[in-house]
């Protein structure tokens, strides 16, 4: 009796010990992952507050004295303010057009029966597979012919076109889940299809619209290759393009580059932390369903 109790005790002690070791290992690995993910960003932000000299002999410590000259330099010489405006403008206009025409098309694709409907839907969704880079050269030629080169229109239209497939995909699958009784009473009351769209279907689609809006915005906000090819004027540059040019010109002024990057990064991270749930849902849903 006594012997077995002792035995039991050592077994549970061992099991507990093993459990603690296992837990600690898991935590250790996850912390390592977190550090690998976050430290590069932290390193950059921290060094953006140092003088170039301090950065070169102490790149790891906190700044001795927090200096803001890098920020002044980045803001004034890199013109980050105007890039911000351009990115916001292009991003929001493209998003509005895309959501509007996309939701409208999705409404007809999901709520009406007509010949060629599935074919048309498939045609839109296949756009998810079109590799953007295969269209850079022809897009440049096309925009030149249309006279859009070096205008914001040159970005707005491709941004709409390349976000339409995922937008239509998300909205159509959401709208087709509504029961058809929804419109029936409205039709009885004499509402036309446009009225039904505006006052019934669109408000009901709010969750899917939110996902689509976020996806559109993030895609437009981060887009670089079309801007690189289609915009050649500093005054019209979007943030990613402006930043790349700034970093290209100030190749040896690392701390000023870091200040510029931080200025762009902070709003992105704040936006992410505030809207984390929607952003994560939007991006993983869009990805998995797409």
């Amino acid at each position, binding site marked *: 009796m006594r012997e077995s109790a002792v035995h039991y005790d050592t077994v549970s002690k061992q099991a507990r010990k093993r459990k603690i070791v296992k837990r600690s290992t898991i935590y250790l690995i996850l912390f390592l992952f977190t550090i690998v993910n976050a430290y590069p960003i932290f390193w950059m932000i921290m060094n953006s507050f140092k003088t170039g000299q301090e950065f070169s002999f102490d790149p790891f410590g906190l700044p001795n004295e927090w200096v803001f000259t890098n920020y002044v330099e980045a803001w004034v010489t890199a013109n980050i303010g105007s890039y911000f405006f351009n990115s916001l403008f292009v991003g929001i206009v493209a998003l509005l057009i895309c959501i509007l025409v996309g939701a409208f098309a999705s409404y007809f694709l999901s709520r009406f029966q007509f010949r060629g409907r599935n074919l048309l839907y498939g045609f839109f969704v296949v756009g998810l597979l079109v590799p953007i880079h295969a*269209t850079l050269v022809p897009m440049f030629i096309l925009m030149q012919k249309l006279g859009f080169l070096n205008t914001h229109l040159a970005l707005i239209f491709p941004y709409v076109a390349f976000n339409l497939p995922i937008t239509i995909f998300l909205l159509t699958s959401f709208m087709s889940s509504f029961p058809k009784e929804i419109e029936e009473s409205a*039709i009885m009351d004499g509402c036309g299809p446009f009225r039904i769209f505006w006052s019934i279907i669109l408000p009901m689609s709010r969750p899917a619209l939110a996902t689509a809006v976020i996806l559109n915005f993030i895609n437009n906000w981060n887009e670089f290759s079309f801007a690189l090819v289609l915009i050649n004027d500093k005054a019209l540059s979007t943030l990613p393009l402006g930043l790349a040019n700034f970093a290209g010109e100030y190749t040896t002024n690392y701390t000023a580059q870091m200040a510029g990057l931080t200025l762009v990064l902070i709003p992105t991270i704040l936006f992410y932390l505030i809207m984390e749930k929607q952003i994560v849902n939007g*991006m993983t849903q869009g990805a998995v369903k797409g």
Partner: protein
Amino acid sequence: MHLLKKPWIIAVGVIPALVIYLIFSIVPIFISFYYSLMSWNGFSEMQFIGLANFKEVFQDSVFWVSVRNNILVVLASVFGQIPIALALALLLNRKMKGAKFFRTIGFMPVVISTVVISITWRMIYNSEYGMINNFLEAIGLGFLQQNWLGDPTWAMVAVCITIIWQFVGLYFIIFLSALQTVPSEILEAADLDGASEWQKTIHVVLPSIWNIILISVVLCISGSLKTFDLIFVMTSGGPANSTEVMATYMYGKTFEGLRYGYGSAISVLIFVFSIALILITTKLLRRREV
């Protein structure tokens, strides 16, 4: 779903989206087919030269380097991002403190603009002031220091590590949410049978999220085929073309070499290559599913 008496209304609803989508996403592909048969520098008269552009592309060894690097990026993404993300998701898939924190930081790089990531990592890899070389020196491994992005043997490795870093978080979160759908009754039944955690993972958990893993592989392939911004900003394809991918090769030939016909031919090949790879993988994976 209902039939409309006036079918033209459907046309009104679908046409705006269709027109934008056609002109700015589908038409460019055909434009590139057309221009790929021409010799054109953007200013002078265009000249029909048949398949000469393609012939020249195939004879250029730099093109084959870029194809090889594209494949390398795909392999690094599939075999880097997916297993790391899966392992981390399995580790975090339990009740633990700070789970939310690990998720938030884990996903963060995914929302950051590729240009910001590229410039940051360019500084991290910098041979004199970069984080990695400084770190190696600080821990007494200074002899391992390299000119990461300046040395053709290391540049592609360095680029691939950044690509893996950028997107591990996406698949991490996708797998985490997939793991939450594994039915808890089956896991409890396995517990009663005395299955170890490892056995449960192999025999219950992985089979039930297998579909999501396959979808993620396809996503990962199509995503990594889109690599352009990152390499363009980090190395512009150098040193000595060692990090060239098809899209950077195309950009250089078209916009720096002013050869629009030749660039269009590369665009066509990017298109064909991407679509073929995506079709092959979906077909292969689907067959295994059955």
